[in-house]
């Protein structure tokens, strides 16, 4: 989930060769119903805006199509990601926030749809994600893998996902660890 540590926001945007347009689009407001986010989750690193984007991305990345498996938004996946981010160097959440904003406002430039990622139809969201995953620009593929790593961490850390993949979980039954108070 670490993006290139040398990559600032401007460098990231320049890498795509479309900084002015993206910056303009990024002034759009996020739609209120972008994704279902558990507002009471007491997130410490992710703000509401970034949490909404990340939840929407993670939902598509981890969608199983299996009725026995939970959707990302039904799990504590965001809290798990937030806890992980607390334990990474402070520049990582900053880079993640840039990546999420770029990702959210990129559809007009990358797939020609005048919409944010979170307001796209699911089929278009998947098409957009595929574009990032297979982009000829290394930076976009890195960003995709970072988001995927976070999504998979959030999703497959949840006990509720394990029966669907026939994973029995830990041998030792111990309470979850809690982080020290900030």
């Amino acid at each position, binding site marked *: *989930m*670490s*993006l*290139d*540590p*040398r990559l600032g926001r401007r460098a990231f945007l320049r890498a795509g060769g479309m900084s002015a347009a993206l910056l303009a689009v990024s002034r759009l407001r996020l739609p209120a119903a972008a994704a279902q986010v558990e507002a009471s989750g007491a997130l410490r690193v992710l703000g509401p805006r970034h949490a909404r984007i990340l939840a929407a991305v993670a939902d*598509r*990345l*981890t*969608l*199983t*199509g*299996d009725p026995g*498996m939970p959707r990302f938004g039904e799990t504590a996946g965001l809290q*798990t990601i937030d*806890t*992980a981010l*607390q*334990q*990474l*160097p402070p520049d990582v959440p900053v880079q993640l926030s840039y990546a999420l904003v770029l990702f959210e406002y990129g559809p007009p430039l990358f797939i020609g749809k005048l919409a944010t990622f979170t307001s796209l139809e699911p089929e278009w969201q*998947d098409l957009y*994600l595929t574009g990032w*995953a*297979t982009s000829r620009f*290394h930076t976009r*593929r*890195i960003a995709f*893998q970072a988001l*995927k*790593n976070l*999504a*998979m*961490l959030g*999703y*497959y*850390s949840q006990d509720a*996902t*394990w029966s*669907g*993949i*026939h*994973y*029995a*979980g*830990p*041998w*030792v039954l*111990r309470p*979850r*660890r809690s*982080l*020290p108070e*900030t």
Partner: protein
Amino acid sequence: MITTGDQVPADLTLSAEVCVIGSGAGGAVVAKELAEAGRDVVLLEQGGHYTKEDFTQREDEMMPLLYEDMGQRATVDQSILILQGRSVGGSTVHNLCYCFRTPEPILDKWTREAGVRDLSAADLLPSFERVERMLKVKPIEPREVNALNNKIREGCEKLGYSGFVTNHNREHCAQSGFCLLGCPFDAKQSMLVTYVPAADRAGARLYANCPVRRLVAEAGRVRRVEGEVVDALGRPRHRFTMTAQVVVLCAGAINTPALLLASGIANANRRVGRDLHLHPSVLMSGIYDENIYGYKGIPQSYYVDEFIDLERDPDSGYILMPVYGFPVMTATQLPGFGRAHFEMMRNYHRMVGILVLMHDQSAGQVQIDRNGRPQISYTVDAREQRLFAEGLQHCAEILFASGASKVIAPYGQPVTLEPDDSLDVFLERGVRQGDIPIASTHPQSTCAMGEDRRRAVVNSYGQSHDLPNLFVCDMSVFPSSLGAPPQISTASLADRTAQYIKASWSTLAQ
């Protein structure tokens, strides 16, 4: 005495005869050997001190505790993931217990080409024996080979490929299979349960959560060690300063050169951080019709050496190793997303992983950013890209020979093959950085040893050519790729350096 960061109430000033930085396979051995010899030793560890009660076998909880950057340390282009430990015991807390002595052809090569002296197999024998006794190294019993490893063995036997069941450092193993996340039974004979407690009993003082930021040299010697006392989340709480007559740097082949570069010392020949080798590896998964449950049982006991012959060619070859992952690790490595990704995850219990681990001549470099943090670059050369592709072909052969109904190579655009499909696709597709995940658990060679001070950072015993009271004692000192799992080599070289320091003490302690 073991002190953790949250037990330190204020800025800390320490002094000892010996300061050891890093408590993994190198540092723990040096600390124990020197403390038992009567030296006053302080052992500094950047990570926390976690014991079997802390190991919950959950990925999201254990990865931040036990792995550098939560297991996400990578090259600057993000094409190679580098897994390293960051707690008391270092990488030995999460490794999979392979125990190999340094291959004799590699020792010969180091003597011949790097000018290392007194490093024959006979010279190292006492160190090998001490380390193996301490770590309770012994063969894995046939009945202990789990289903995943047996599939690899079965495939190799059908194809006539050379492979064998290895030695491990385990004692009364419960075979729960969660070794990557720390052993909750203290069965893994890591540094955490062997050398560190022995150093503690001998009087060494261990400070956990104490990352070193700078070594200060004056008048040709290291005079001071400076760092921070951090909390469990790595946030600075206090500063510490330490003085010692001898400093032994054992922070691993990434952090050791980074610290030397940040300190601006021991680098007169500008070789610090160069010639990084990684033992890079690429992964393939086989799907079987029967249940494997690869995460259960001893995870990595078989070893395929068909494609490496160090006697014939000490500069080339690759090893095939069984490998497994827990759900998060597996999900991040499998290609794609959404429903197609889940169709692969649905077969998690029927998967067998095998990786190609390169004895690499390709090289990289560790540099630092303006904050002193390591910046790692590495390029897999064209020859080894071809060898990787060839290795993937052999992985597929082995998996199909043992009954896999499908194999998956995790390219960005995944390659999925069935038994009758041509395996030429790997040669056609090649293995290029950024196109397929590459991982490393064995970074090495960034402060190479040798007697030629123009080429080597340290001498044959790990002593800096520039600063005689500074030693390096980790995988940094390997003059080339080791070509084998490094745990015993690292610990044995550390034992050897410790014996040298003991014998030279009156000269060193000015």
